[in-house]
């Protein structure tokens, strides 16, 4: 049995403090089974052993330190090789050529890191010297394994803690801007609300949104969006006192939680942030357009709000109002804000409208229009409806305003044009009048769609009439006029809707290629009892005729009114007396034939 059994490379090093040759020891150890014994001095030993590396295993070595009697040199060596001993890479066994050291000396030696102290006084020790060294060797190896194992666990634990800290960080931050993300911000806001309630502190929240962010992102190309976000984030970082929490809630939305701020402070800061963002200079590479932001402010008194989402919603709504005012603006939330009444209506409609568009669930109702000269139904007005299942009650007037504010009107207009031409294609004997939103003639896609659809369906253009309102006509007058003229040139017809409800209708008749005037229904409803209405309608009919326009009267609800209007010279009549809007065109036509 030898040391080789435990470790193939194990060498027993012998250091002799007396500087005398100790060949007898080597011989004795070899005789007892040691594989390799070498005499070295301390310096040589250092050079033979690899340094201790945390987390790395290494070979172990055993040193027999020979001395005449218990010697300070033993402690000295233990100190010098302390690092190796500690890591179980080296064991020092003292060997005293003489009588056994006393208990105290033996204890000191062990305390200094020595693994054992043997002595030669007595045959027994001499005989089992190698066995005693083997025991020491086992101790060293155990110590080494334990240290290695401990370090291994320590490393795993430390690494796990670092990984956990990183994932915790990632879960709470937006990694583009390194700001708090929505969920972290929401938690902080919740805590702030609670704290405000307990201690009677007023707090405020700013919701800052980059105007036309999508445009920046699309125009300047990949990465430009992130660049702009980081730029704005850093700008906000620099502008805020450290105690105000800054977060990025979503795409281009930032939020600032102002603990303990009153309205004045919140508004001042909001405007300061707005100004700073508007001062970002386009760099021509990442930022092509002028940058601006809108900021919504809400100040919440202790106990005035119950949760974070309520505060978020208030600030977001205020920001939305600032945006509808053209952006680069700030707005403070208030419960009795009239701008917010629209907003709530819009919020109510946003989902149903998007859903109806996405699932193609809008539909048209048709109301007949009677030609007085021909004595029969000459065409129908197509009225847009949204299914009640979508949450609405159908009437287009109610959701079209919301759709316009939400920026969805143009998509709806295109849907209407598309659908109307499909109907005209299916019913070759039919003519339709359609209503488009006030933004329809801003939509660059309208004319191409119309041309394409007319070509595809082979519908004759004069069978389609567009009813436009004065308000639609005055938006971007030059552009609208050009587009209307182009559509008219295709052969489509135009009716000026709600004629008389505006102030300057007559001048439009001159400037637009209008074929028909539709007298505003409010003049018709009471025409039999109100001589002023009657006079106005008569004048409108006369003016229309003198300008070569046909005149339509709507809201005709009874026979007497109809007869009166026919006497006054209208060309067409529309209203419940003539026919209610219907979904089933075929049934309606059949009924009318009777």
């Amino acid at each position, binding site marked *: 049995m030898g040391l080789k059994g435990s470790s193939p490379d194990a060498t027993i090093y012998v250091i002799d403090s007396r500087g005398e040759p100790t060949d007898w020891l080597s011989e004795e150890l070899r005789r007892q089974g040691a594989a390799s014994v070498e005499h070295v001095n301390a310096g040589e030993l250092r050079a033979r052993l690899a340094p201790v590396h*945390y987390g790395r295993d290494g070979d172990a070595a055993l040193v027999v330190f020979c001395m005449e009697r218990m010697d300070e040199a033993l402690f000295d060596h233990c100190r010098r090789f302390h690092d190796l001993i500690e890591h179980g890479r080296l064991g020092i066994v003292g060997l005293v050529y003489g009588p056994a050291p006393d208990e105290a000396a033996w204890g000191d030696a062990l305390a200094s890191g020595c693994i054992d102290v043997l002595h030669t006084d007595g045959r027994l020790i001499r005989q089992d010297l190698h066995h005693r060294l083997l025991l020491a060797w086992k101790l060293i190896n155990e110590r080494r394994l334990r240290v290695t194992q401990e370090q291994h666990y320590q*490393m795993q634990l430390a690494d796990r803690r*670092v990984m956990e*800290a990183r994932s915790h960080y990632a879960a709470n931050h937006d990694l583009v801007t390194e700001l708090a993300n929505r969920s972290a911000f929401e938690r902080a806001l919740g805590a702030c609300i609670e704290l405000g309630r307990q201690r009677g502190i007023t707090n405020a929240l700013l919701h800052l949104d980059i105007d036309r962010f999508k445009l920046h992102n699309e125009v300047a190309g990949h990465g430009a969006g992130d660049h702009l976000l980081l730029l704005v984030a850093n700008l906000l970082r620099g502008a805020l006192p450290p105690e105000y929490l800054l977060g990025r809630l979503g795409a281009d939305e930032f939020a600032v939680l102002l603990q303990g701020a009153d309205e004045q402070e919140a508004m001042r800061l909001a405007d300061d942030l707005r100004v700073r963002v508007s001062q970002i200079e386009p760099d021509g590479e990442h930022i092509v357009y002028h940058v601006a932001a809108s900021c919504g402010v809400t100040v919440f008194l202790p106990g005035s709000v119950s949760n974070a989402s309520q505060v978020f919603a208030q600030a977001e709504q205020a920001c939305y109002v600032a945006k509808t005012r053209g952006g680069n603006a700030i707005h403070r939330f208030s419960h009795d804000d009239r701008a917010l009444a629209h907003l709530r209506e819009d919020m109510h409609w946003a989902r149903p409208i998007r859903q109806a568009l996405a699932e193609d669930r809008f539909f048209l109702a048709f109301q007949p229009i009677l030609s007085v000269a021909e004595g029969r139904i000459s065409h129908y007005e197509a009225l847009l409806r949204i299914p009640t299942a979508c949450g609405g009650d159908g009437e287009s007037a109610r959701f079209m305003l919301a759709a316009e504010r939400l920026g969805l009107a143009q998509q709806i207009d295109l849907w209407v044009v598309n659908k109307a031409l499909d109907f005209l294609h299916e019913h070759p004997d039919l003519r339709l009048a359609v209503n488009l939103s006030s933004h329809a003639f801003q939509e660059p896609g309208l004319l191409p769609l119309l041309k394409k659809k007319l070509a595809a369906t082979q519908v004759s253009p004069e069978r389609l009439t567009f009813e436009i309102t004065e308000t639609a006509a005055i938006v971007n007058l030059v552009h609208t006029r050009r587009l209307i003229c182009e559509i008219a040139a295709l052969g489509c017809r135009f009716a000026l809707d709600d004629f008389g409800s505006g102030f300057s209708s007559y001048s439009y008749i001159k400037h637009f290629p209008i074929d028909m005037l539709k007298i505003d229904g409010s003049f018709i409803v009471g025409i039999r009892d109100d001589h002023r209405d009657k006079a106005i309608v008569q004048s409108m009919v006369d003016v229309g005729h003198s300008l070569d326009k046909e005149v339509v009267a709507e809201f005709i609800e009874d026979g007497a009114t109809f007869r009166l209007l026919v006497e006054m010279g209208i060309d067409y009549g529309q209203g419940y007396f003539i026919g209610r809007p219907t979904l089933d065109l075929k049934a309606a036509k059949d009924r009318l034939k009777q």
Partner: protein
Amino acid sequence: MTFIRFDRTDLKVDDLLLGDVALVSPPEVYARLTHLLENAEATLTAVVGVIEHDPALAARLLRLANSPFFALLRPVLNVSEAIALIGIQELKQLVLATEVIRHFDGIPANLIDIYAFWRQSVRCAVLARLLADRRSPPLDADAMFVAALLHGVGHLVIYARLPELGRKTLLEHRYRGEPLYAMQREFIGFDYAQVGEALARRWRLPELFRCVIAWHIHPEQAESHGAEAALVHLALAAGRAPSFDREQVRDFLPRESRPWELAGITHAMLEDALSEAEQDFLAALALLR
């Protein structure tokens, strides 16, 4: 008022070091030299052997030894000549500097510009060396050079182990105008000096280096080597100026008198040091090449 906070990690300094064996392992050649030189009987041959075992390192050391930085009277051709002319302890320190720079090569370039980081450290180191010579009594200039060079090594551990938090603290520092160490304390829970000190302990760096790394931010709190820490504090501040021009440097110097007194450095000494700094700086860049 209590402000809502949720950012700070609950990490300890040792977590950063212990979890990464490669990072916490001391620079190889430096560790072997230290191990070897711990015994007085170490032979020159053994020392040379350890250095030449890493030919790239040896070449870099020779290039540095022959640079105007040491202004030796004759060219040095091999490692044993370098030891003879520069000194074995000095050479060991240069080995440390060279190896530490190489040690952190893997920091992602999008996080920090590692070359710029070391350039900045070299600026500080060059000034520390010049100031050490001008002081009375003088300090060990070569040791001060390396101590100053390594003052910010803790930053690199943070970037290597916590890249996201490293980026956050950098952004907060740059755009809020707060000191970086303060941002590290705020968001990580400890600063680069604490990390650097722990690393110095793990690497068994000399006490001087450990103290300079640990206390250069607040030298007045130093348990020992306060003068050296204060000197590096000044060198670091002066090194932040865009050039060594004394007018430009002036705006970056600490206003309070405490670090000056502690370091035993006067404004006149600093201005004198600045006049040689540019030349030394260009020579010391050999370390980075």
